[in-house]
């Protein structure tokens, strides 16, 4: 039998039928939220179609929820349009018998934090959600992809997706990273190396000892950012780290079923000799703490570097884009990036809002605090935990006390300032050190200037008042 990749195995295990030259694949888990589903449910209603598998569907409220006052519920949300969307979701899940964690429920939070946390995300599954960062769940060895609203409707109605198979790409990260360098830096290094369209048409499997050494939180960060490299899905083969994370979670199998499931999950790995359409190899030891300088996630540079000169880029298109980006970002070619003074710091998002992310940031803040340093006076810094459960755990560990003592705002869970659909957003010209995933023009607020970096680097920037090398803080 021909050697198969991890992606090939998951794909083959989900084939339902071929029809008119397209493949129909089965979807094991469908995650939904308030922003990309109202039109899908309206479509079902208009055609008199039921939801085929409400039990394989899970709903949360995350994209436009405010990060305070959540206990008051959706009806109390001040923004009229956001309120209507949230109430529409509540009606749709009630009408269709779909499990839902409403705003204010301890289990609610960002959809890509909640799925894994609840044990709903499992190895070997196919997972979809009307959100591009669904790639996150690939950390468990699940084929997880973002889809549009028409496909959300298709999955609700049929529990399947019509799709053509992608190509296989493998990114191997060998070696041991330096202190202060982690999953976020790995991901930014990959995007910087292959570009935002480098993974288009591919599923990326991450391998190598540096990936194996990552926690599940780190693997989720890495897979999350796969879409920023153009690939719809990222994958890490499941191993003991995966099973240790999953054991005992509410929706994880129990007892004899657990053993049967683990045996099944262990079959999801790339066979020796399987062929990838393309391969990238990176040495973790060569990666410095990274930041973005421009308005595309591929605009990465080491924190020790200087802002690049647009003239140094290869093509006229790239030169024009770089010049436009520097103008938008208010940066000058040749200036050390550590001179970039920040107004805001955002620690949160589906990329970096899990307990390990908050611990890494809190460790930097605590050390600085003990040396008498607080958040710089001109900086407004906020921490938005990924879920109610992450928030509760952080509070149990005293992390909230550290953040608050140093001057951070400690908020309630949600997508928040990653995309600024709720009231948390940048004002024009404001510069933000952000642990999120997109530095696009206007992403965090019209005219806002976003620098992507790791949670520890964001904490260092908050204390320093400008982009700073986390290695000076640990």
């Amino acid at each position, binding site marked *: 039998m021909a050697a198969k990749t991890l992606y090939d195995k998951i794909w083959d295990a989900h084939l*339902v039928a071929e*029809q*008119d*030259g*397209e493949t129909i694949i*089965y979807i*094991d888990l469908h995650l939904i939220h308030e*922003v*990309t589903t*109202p*039109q899908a449910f*309206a479509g079902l209603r208009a*055609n008199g179609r039921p939801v*085929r598998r409400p*039990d394989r569907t899970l709903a949360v409220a995350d994209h*436009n929820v405010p990060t305070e006052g959540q206990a008051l519920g959706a009806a109390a949300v001040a*923004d009229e*349009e956001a309120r209507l969307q949230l109430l529409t979701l509540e009606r749709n899940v009630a009408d269709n018998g779909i499990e839902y964690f409403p705003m204010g429920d301890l289990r609610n939070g960002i959809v890509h934090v909640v799925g894994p946390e609840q044990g709903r995300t*499992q190895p070997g599954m196919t997972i979809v959600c*009307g959100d*591009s960062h669904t790639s996150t769940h690939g950390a468990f060895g699940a084929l997880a992809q*973002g*889809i*549009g*609203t*028409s*496909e959300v409707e*298709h999955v609700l*109605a*049929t*529990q*399947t997706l*019509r799709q053509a198979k992608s190509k296989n790409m493998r990114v191997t990260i060998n070696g041991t990273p330096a202190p202060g360098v982690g999953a976020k830096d790995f991901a930014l290094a990959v995007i910087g190396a292959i570009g*935002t*369209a480098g993974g*288009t048409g591919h599923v990326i499997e991450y391998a190598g000892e540096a990936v194996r050494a990552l926690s599940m939180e780190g693997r989720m960060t890495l897979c999350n950012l796969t*879409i920023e490299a*153009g690939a*719809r899905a990222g994958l890490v083969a499941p191993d003991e780290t995966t099973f240790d994370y999953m054991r005992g979670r509410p*929706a994880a*199998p129990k007892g004899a*079923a657990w053993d*049967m*499931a683990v045996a*099944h999950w262990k079959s999801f790995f790339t066979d020796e000799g399987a062929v990838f359409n393309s391969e990238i190899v990176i040495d973790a030891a060569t990666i410095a703490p990274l930041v973005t300088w421009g308005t*595309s996630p591929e605009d990465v540079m080491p924190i020790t570097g200087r802002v690049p000169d647009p003239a140094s880029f290869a093509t006229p*298109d*790239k030169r024009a*884009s770089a010049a*436009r980006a520097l103008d938008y970002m208010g940066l000058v070619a040749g200036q050390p990036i550590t001179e970039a003074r920040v107004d805001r710091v955002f620690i949160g998002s589906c990329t970096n809002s899990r307990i390990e992310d908050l611990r890494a940031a809190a460790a930097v803040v605590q050390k600085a605090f003990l040396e008498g340093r607080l958040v710089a006076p001109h900086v407004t810094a906020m921490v938005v935990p990924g879920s109610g459960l992450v928030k509760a755990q952080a509070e149990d560990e005293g992390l909230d006390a550290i953040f608050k003592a140093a001057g951070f705002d400690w908020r309630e869970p949600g997508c928040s300032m990653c*995309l*600024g*659909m709720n009231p948390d957003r940048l004002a*024009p010209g404001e510069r933000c050190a952000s642990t999120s995933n*997109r530095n*696009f*023009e206007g*992403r965090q607020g*019209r*005219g806002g200037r976003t620098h992507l970096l790791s949670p520890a680097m964001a904490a260092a920037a908050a204390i320093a008042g400008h982009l700073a090398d986390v290695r000076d803080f640990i």
Partner: protein
Amino acid sequence: MKPFTRIDAKAAPLALSNIDTDQIIPKQFLKTVEREGLARGLFYDFRFDEAGNEKADFVLNQPAYKDAGVLVAGDNFGCGSSREHAPWALLDFGITCVISTSFADIFYNNCFQNGLLPVVLKADEVESLMAQARGGNHVVSVDLEAQTVTAPDGEVYRFEIDPARKHKMLNGLDAIGETLQRAADIDVYEGRRALDNPWLERA
């Protein structure tokens, strides 16, 4: 879905790479429960200043392109967020075809769900179309059946497209309706999964 067969329309040049879906339609327009009426938000930050006034220099605000039906854009069009509001906004504005050298996967896929035709041409072909779109005669013909784009100068460019997608687009087929015809296959699959992976069946 409205079928796409053939159009003759004005082409607007947008010579930027990596145009992301946040730029195509910013966040504040996603708080709707409708598919219609999104033209207002299309390229909002490009089209309007902070006070909400039209920016005269943006291509779709210029009289020659206000009724454009085709957009010629730089590489990797539609990257970023999966929001289907992006094709909805383009269609609502009147744009039914986007031509580029490459598209991001999710956006590309979303186009086919809505009858918006994404056409991939070679770099020199896109460059030539871009230059002609800037000129006085900027009407192009796009023929899906023939898989061709005819430039204003009469040059004909052929494009590739997946036959299954082409068929659905030409006929405006409802993908859900098609798949539901295979409901028996889905039943069989589910039955087998329930036996093989019983832990997936939640009580």
